[in-house]
């Protein structure tokens, strides 16, 4: 048995743009333990509900994280709508679903790129991000923003997408799907990629359950959880099954996420077919009073919003439990007994979003 060494990892490190700090306790090349330390991006935005009224707060909620910005806004709006018993018009719900799924595609492509970068496959990173730009263009055409949209509002959405644009979206995504097939081939069949991912960071089904993993992390370990099956927004009208894998290693997590990109494209197609005509937003009156609890499926997994209101225009309490926070125990589990060289890729396979974890 070798001597124990502690290697500090981060906060400024080349794996992610975001700062996270880990103390890696090593025995020779093996990691025995990883001790996380967070707080570099903590802003304290939950307390901002006391200074911004509940309508303005929608825009703050969107900025919890710039990657799932649409879904954060949507979750917050859904919670407030729950308190005020507002029924969002059907077309609004479908539009929310479409934007949410486009966000999922953009987020997973972003992750695929970063992962490729982490195992040193630079051109794969470039190609994933090239595809992602097309998704961002769709956002820009429909909402006016690339990453922060301000399009979700309490009671519905603030912009409509006309039929022509909806068809353009579908044709762009169909073209992308073809290019994605080539990328998928590299991600899932390339020998060197497999070498870095197969059998690396295995999380067994039991451990996934025990640590409370969520989202693709749990689904790659064979647990079929997907909050979209609860049928919020327009998901109750759509046909889909959670995508799962059994192996629980980095490769399986990649498989699940790639599968979800295709699934998202398919869901958008279904939405475009089913979307009804009508209003996209209802007027709201008065202030919320009461509390509500909402669960959504974000690209990274299940997110929970809790809102408590007191009848004034300022909320009492707003609370978010983000998917990365739920996945950190699972990450620490996979880091045990791994090689030091595999640490970057393991950190990436949970698709960490530090900014929403610390808020």
């Amino acid at each position, binding site marked *: 048995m070798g001597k124990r060494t502690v290697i500090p990892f981060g906060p400024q490190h080349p794996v992610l743009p*975001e700062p996270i700090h880990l103390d890696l306790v090593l025995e020779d090349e093996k990691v025995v333990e990883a001790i996380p330390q967070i707080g570099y*991006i*903590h*802003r304290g935005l939950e307390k*901002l509900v006391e200074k911004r009224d509940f309508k303005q707060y929608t825009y703050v909620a969107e900025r919890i994280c710039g*990657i799932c910005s649409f879904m954060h806004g949507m979750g917050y709006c859904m919670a407030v709508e729950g308190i005020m018993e507002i029924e969002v018009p059907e077309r609004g719900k479908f539009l929310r679903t479409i934007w949410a799924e486009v966000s999922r595609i953009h987020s997973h492509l972003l992750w695929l790129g970063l992962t490729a970068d982490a195992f040193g496959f630079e051109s794969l990173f470039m190609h994933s991000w090239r595809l992602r730009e097309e998704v*961002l263009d769709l956002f820009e055409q429909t909402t006016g923003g690339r990453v*922060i949209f301000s399009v979700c509002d309490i009671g519905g959405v603030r912009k409509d997408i006309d039929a022509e644009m909806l068809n353009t979206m579908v044709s762009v995504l169909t073209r992308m799907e073809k290019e994605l097939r080539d990328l998928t081939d590299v991600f899932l069949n390339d020998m060197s990629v497999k070498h870095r991912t197969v059998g690396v960071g295995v999380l067994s089904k039991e451990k996934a359950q025990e640590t409370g993993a969520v989202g693709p992390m749990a689904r790659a370990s064979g647990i079929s959880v997907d909050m979209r099956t609860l049928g919020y927004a327009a998901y109750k009208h759509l046909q889909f099954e959670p995508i799962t894998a059994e192996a629980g290693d980095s490769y399986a997590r990649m498989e699940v996420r790639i599968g979800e990109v295709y699934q998202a494209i398919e869901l958008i197609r279904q939405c475009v077919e089913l979307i009804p005509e009508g209003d996209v937003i209802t007027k709201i009156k008065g202030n919320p009073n009461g509390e509500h609890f909402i669960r959504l499926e974000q690209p990274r997994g299940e997110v929970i919003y809790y809102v408590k209101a007191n009848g004034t225009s300022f909320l009492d309490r707003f609370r978010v439990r983000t998917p990365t926070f739920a996945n950190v125990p699972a990450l620490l589990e996979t880091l045990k007994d791994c090689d030091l060289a595999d640490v970057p890729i393991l950190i990436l396979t949970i698709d960490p979003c530090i*900014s929403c974890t610390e808020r």
Partner: protein
Amino acid sequence: MNFNKKSPWILHYDGSSCNGCDIGVLACLTPLYDVERFGVINTGNPRHADILLLTGSLNAQNIPVVQQIYDQMPEPKVVAAIGICATSGGIFAECYNVVGGVDKVLPVDVYVPGCAARPQAIIDGVVKALSILDEKQNALKGR
């Protein structure tokens, strides 16, 4: 012309941003914008960097980190604040854990507006930073 004007190396650090501006910075490196063709390289090592791009506001915990990164960079160096958070704290300015924009701690040379800052604006910011870098270089030579 100074050599580093031709090929500035950038270092990106995320103060407490929401990721919106970070992925804007990263997007500059990808094929659509591809700043590498101009010789701009994203480095992870402060000792190699000429331009420090900071996104997000500062808080008590990351101030020493930012300060250390800045101190480790060789002269001449330029600091660019990317996004409204880094400029003034932006939408989070009133949060209890936000000290404010980057200029509370470091001398900022270029401010890039936007929430999120667009890649075009970020590239423009880097180009502005280049001429400042040049001036600083000349000032150093004169010493």
